[in-house]
């Protein structure tokens, strides 16, 4: 399984990278860690004439803490986040999620930005950034812009990036001291792509509650009713009745999401949402 031939560009700056993408006229792709892209190249599933390797661009590896948020360069690796080398604005949630992505060898090279730019529905970061209401910073030849994570991920492998744009930063709001979070991932086999994925974040200080279910057929689903049920369940003991209310809310959210899913998928996703919310409430 060897790739078809392609050119490789290794620009030193973001501007140069954006220019190379534009020159590629739709047949150039940016590569960060390559952990998802190179397998596709090996399988000859990704028609590409030019790979623009972002690995030499120093600014993409930076992490900046500001008031109320932390901005990650796109090429910060999962391992760096897992090892606590980068500021964690989420009180350990990002670090915990990072440590569960695939396997260490993949985490050493796979990146936060690369994962978001690819937008595989089962990717943990895709769901988590939506759950955290992160902001994606995009760089292109014509300038920079920002898009909320929720509007960045449009579907399976579909994002708001234009062909010649590069995901440059991810800005994550700092969670308050009363924040609670939970996650649940259903894999048949450790480290493989999730069959179902749920993130639950609640920050009472900011009146913020969000529940996101991923590994659906399209973009992760933001579950409004489940978030509301989580808010109401917070601060009380978790009971069978609370669980049932949360489950019904999650099922209603899924039914209303317009997904092409069968009963099995619907049940799995509802169960994941319940598990994530239960963890958040009990934490």
């Amino acid at each position: 399984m060897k790739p078809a031939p392609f050119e490789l560009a290794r620009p030193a700056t973001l501007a140069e990278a954006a220019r190379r993408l534009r020159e590629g006229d739709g047949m150039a792709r940016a590569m960060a860690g390559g952990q998802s892209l190179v397998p596709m190249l090996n399988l000859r599933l990704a028609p590409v004439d030019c790979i623009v390797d972002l690995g030499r661009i120093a600014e993409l590896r930076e992490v900046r803490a500001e008031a109320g948020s932390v901005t990650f360069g796109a090429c910060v690796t999962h391992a760096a986040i897992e090892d606590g080398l980068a500021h964690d604005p989420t009180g350990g949630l990002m670090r915990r999620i990072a440590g569960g992505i695939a396997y260490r060898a993949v985490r050493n090279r796979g990146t936060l930005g690369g994962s978001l730019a690819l937008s595989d529905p089962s990717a943990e970061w895709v769901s988590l950034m939506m759950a955290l209401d992160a902001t994606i910073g995009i760089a292109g030849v014509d300038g920079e812009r920002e898009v909320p994570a929720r509007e960045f991920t449009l579907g399976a492998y579909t994002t708001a990036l234009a062909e010649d744009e590069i995901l440059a930063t991810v800005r994550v709001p700092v969670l308050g001291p009363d924040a609670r979070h939970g996650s649940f991932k259903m894999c048949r086999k450790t480290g493989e792509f999730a069959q179902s994925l749920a993130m639950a974040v609640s920050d009472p200080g900011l009146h913020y509650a969000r529940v996101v279910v991923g590994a659906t057929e399209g973009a992760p689903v933001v579950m409004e009713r489940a978030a509301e049920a989580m808010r109401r369940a917070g601060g009380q003991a978790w009971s069978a009745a609370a669980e049932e209310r949360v489950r019904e809310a999650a099922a209603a959210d899924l039914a209303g999401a317009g997904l092409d899913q069968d009963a099995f998928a619907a049940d799995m996703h509802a169960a994941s949402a319940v598990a994530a919310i239960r963890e958040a409430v009990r934490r």
Partner: protein
Amino acid sequence: METMDITLRINGEPVRARVEPRTSLADFVRERCRRTGTHLGCEHGVCGACTVEIDGAIARSCIALAACCEGAEIRTIEGFDDDPVMRIVREAFRDTHGLQCGFCTPGMLITVRDMLLRDRAGDARRIRVELSGNLCRCTGYAGIVRAVELAAQRLAQERANGTVVTRAAGRAMSGEG
């Protein structure tokens, strides 16, 4: 066909070569450098047989492009002959029957050594999670888990004796390509 000139270090030796951009690091070390201990089991980053170290961090060489490893320090299984931690790991694998056909073994050894150096070899459950990225079709993993436990014990002893001195394995902040 377009080629690039690259310079990197393989097991401490500088290597200069002309490669196609599409050449994987695995194929580069195997075919061009004749270090065939790194094996290809899937070429899509799942099985771990191709695991090497890039700048001190374990990585799957089948999905790393050789040209993106410009300037990097690559360590394959052949580069650990004098490594005292790898010696401990190898002896443990031999003592606990942690290999049968041997095909997954180089990648497994490099992963286990890294696990020990990062202090991630906790209980059996934790060890299994750390091993989950390396597939073995022969052993059922029992001998491998026991090898990790035994190696961890022996490493602790040798550290305490002073016969082995280690520093933590390198961790990259970013994806170097």
